[in-house]
């Protein structure tokens, strides 16, 4: 039974349960809802929850975990010596599931009978061609081992499907029966339903924890996998980055990528911090309400523009413009830039992106400095700028530092602008007009493309992701701590 229909069946049982229990409750109260502990609909909802929640959870868990178990057990039946040279069990299993899916498709399209799909043998049939006719493209001819495994796989999956359908629907009916048996006038249906709703709320709130857990685990496992086949010292201390998709000759050093990342972030902050900070000071301290109402939203538009737009702006507008100034035969007659993609290009554009980020955070923080502080300074004859520089800014400093750290974390984690504006060459250079690359850009380039996920060239992306995650997390935690301390000071 397809999953869709199982879900429908469970929901249907739930709805029937709702009706049954609602009317049973009404009957047990002699038709007068006042004799019930809760409103009749709560008895119905109780039955619905009993017959829907647990079965759907089971269904979900089954769909995720049982295929993994099946893969395991089928994999265990493939003898070691049948694994082809240069291949691995993982690759074989990928083929197995592809063939198995292909057979499913062939049966459902009518290109093959159910009987045939179970009995075909590579010796007699060109399985590849048969599957190609229904649109399943296989990379190579199907060998006997794989076909047999695939057929076993299919059989096991079918069995599992059947068990799953039975188990889920049985559980749903059991839930319904339980709810029915408990439905009486004095049953505290509302409390049960509310407890269940509360559990759902907690479950929803846990998604945040699960997400973090998912991020940490997926980074951690793959990073460990990477360090198993690649020396960690080489990753951290090698100063060259030149992956090659052969087996030899790859150098995967983190240093040039980190340098590129930091260099671009520094350029970005050098643009965003002064501009953003002065803009915030002006908006908070000088601007008339009219100017503020006009300039603040306009600046914040910059924050709402997707990074892909900035990336394109860097690649197609700012890069060529900078080359026309600093490039060969450019306005300034210096030949600093060879191509449009450079640290300067990406940094400048990223800086523009961060201006509203710095300015609105700083604006909030400057506004949080108590007016009494300004009065104290103005009252003894300081000018506004003296008050700002010597009283307001020092008082706001921790908060502003926090804001800058958050901006730095943004800059380090930014992807599209550097992918499009910074270039692809990993270099340890001081020239800001040279193309460099960053951790994020390399994560993209190592994980897009057709490389095998088990190769160090792909796995290194997870180690890069881990480094990125740790750095930005540290910056964020520090920044949030500083900002919170600052807020408490003036609350």
């Amino acid at each position, binding site marked *: 039974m397809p999953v869709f229909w199982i879900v429908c069946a469970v929901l249907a049982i739930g709805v029937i349960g709702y009706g049954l229990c609602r009317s049973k409750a009404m009957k047990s109260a002699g038709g007068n809802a006042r004799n019930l502990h809760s409103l009749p609909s709560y008895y119905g909802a109780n039955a619905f929850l009993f017959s829907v929640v647990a079965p759907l959870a089971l269904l979900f868990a089954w769909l995720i975990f049982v295929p993994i178990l099946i893969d395991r057990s089928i994999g265990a039946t493939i003898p070691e010596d049948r694994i082809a040279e240069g291949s691995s069990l993982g690759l074989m299993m990928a083929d197995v599931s592809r063939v198995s899916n292909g057979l499913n498709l062939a049966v459902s399209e009518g290109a093959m009978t159910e009987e045939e799909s179970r009995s075909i043998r590579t010796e007699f049939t060109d399985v590849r061609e048969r599957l190609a006719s229904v649109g399943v493209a296989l990379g190579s001819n199907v060998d006997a081992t794989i076909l047999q495994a695939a057929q076993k796989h299919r059989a096991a999956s079918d069995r599992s499907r059947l068990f799953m359908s039975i188990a889920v629907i049985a559980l749903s009916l059991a839930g319904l029966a339980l709810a029915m048996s408990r439905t009486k006038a004095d049953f505290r249906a509302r409390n049960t339903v509310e407890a269940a709703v509360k559990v759902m709320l907690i479950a929803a709130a846990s998604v945040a924890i699960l997400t973090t857990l998912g991020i940490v685990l997926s980074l951690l496992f793959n990073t460990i996998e990477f360090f198993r086949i690649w020396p960690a010292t080489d990753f951290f201390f090698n100063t060259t980055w030149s992956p090659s998709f052969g087996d030899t000759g790859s150098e995967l050093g983190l240093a040039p990528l980190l340098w590129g990342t930091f260099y671009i972030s520094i350029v970005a902050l050098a643009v965003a911090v002064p501009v953003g900070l002065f803009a915030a000071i002006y908006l908070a301290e000088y601007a*008339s*309400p009219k100017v503020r109402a006009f300039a603040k939203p306009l600046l914040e538009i910059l924050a709402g523009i997707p990074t892909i737009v900035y990336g394109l702006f860097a690649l197609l507008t700012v890069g060529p413009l900078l080359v026309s100034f600093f490039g060969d035969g450019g306005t300034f007659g210096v030949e600093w830039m060879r191509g449009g993609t450079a640290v300067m290009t990406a940094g400048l554009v990223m800086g523009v992106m961060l201006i509203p980020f710095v300015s609105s955070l700083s604006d909030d923080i400057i506004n949080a400095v*108590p007016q*009494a*502080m*300004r*009065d*104290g*300074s*103005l*009252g*003894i*004859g*300081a*000018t506004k700028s*003296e008050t700002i520089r*010597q*009283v307001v800014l*020092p*008082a706001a400093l921790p908060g502003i530092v926090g804001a800058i750290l958050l901006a730095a974390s943004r800059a380090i984690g930014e992807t599209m602008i550097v992918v499009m504006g910074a270039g692809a060459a990993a270099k340890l250079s001081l020239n800001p007009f040279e193309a460099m690359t960053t951790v994020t850009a390399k994560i993209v380039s190592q994980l897009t493309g057709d490389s095998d996920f088990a190769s160090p060239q792909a796995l290194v992306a997870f180690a890069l992701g881990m480094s990125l995650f740790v750095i930005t997390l540290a910056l964020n935690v520090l920044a949030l701590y500083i900002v919170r301390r600052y807020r408490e000071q003036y609350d």
Partner: protein
Amino acid sequence: MDDLRSVERIVSDDEKTKISAKNVQVYYGDTHAIRDVDVEIADKTVTAFIGPSGCGKSTFLRCLNRMNDTIDICRVEGDIRIDGEDIYDKRVDPVQLRAKVGMVFQKPNPFPKSIYDNVAYGPRIHGLAHSKAELDEIVEKSLRRGAIWNEVKDRLDAPGTGLSGGQQQRLCIARAVATEPEVLLMDEPCSALDPIATAQVEELIDELRQSYSVVIVTHSMQQAARVSQRTAFFHLGNLVEFGETGQIFTNPTDERTESYISGRIG
């Protein structure tokens, strides 16, 4: 009003007028907050402004050093002169004015800096000291005038925010004094302090009178009676009565003043 003036003249024979305000009106947006206030504040005396909350006494005080300029919607009309110079003249720089007319606020508001830097802030921005030694001298002198020197002389580098409320307020007074003002405005300087700290500050105010013209806003009549020589009673934005403190408290001419003093309004 005429007879008030005559009373005033009797007591102020030997004192010259420092600030004279005539026909002052203050508006907050559309609200007419202060109406037709005429006051003459003498040099080297303590003048108290009393009245119920919201009567405009603080607003009027803030007109005297143009602190109201920092509020966008506030508009001041009329004539306020210090030593005969109109402080709302276009040529007057409020910054210069405020150096001459210092201010102490309701809530102690030390800067988040060291005690030394708090006091040195004014002299530094106004360029009163030419050397570190001179600045040290000014700081010490101001802290002594603020009657807090003995308590803080050993920890000038400690943050000003770490002092107790009363100490903070005296520090703020020292900070205001450090710019060598001629007039000192105090906006309910004791309302956030405990009785002991209040007594210390009041004692200090009495001593400051010898050097400055002090104007203090208070909602405590007892305080006004204790520290001031002159008292002005404000009510609903009007100056109701102005005269010698003793006379205001013992023999008010206006019945509103009497009502307030005897506790029937306020």
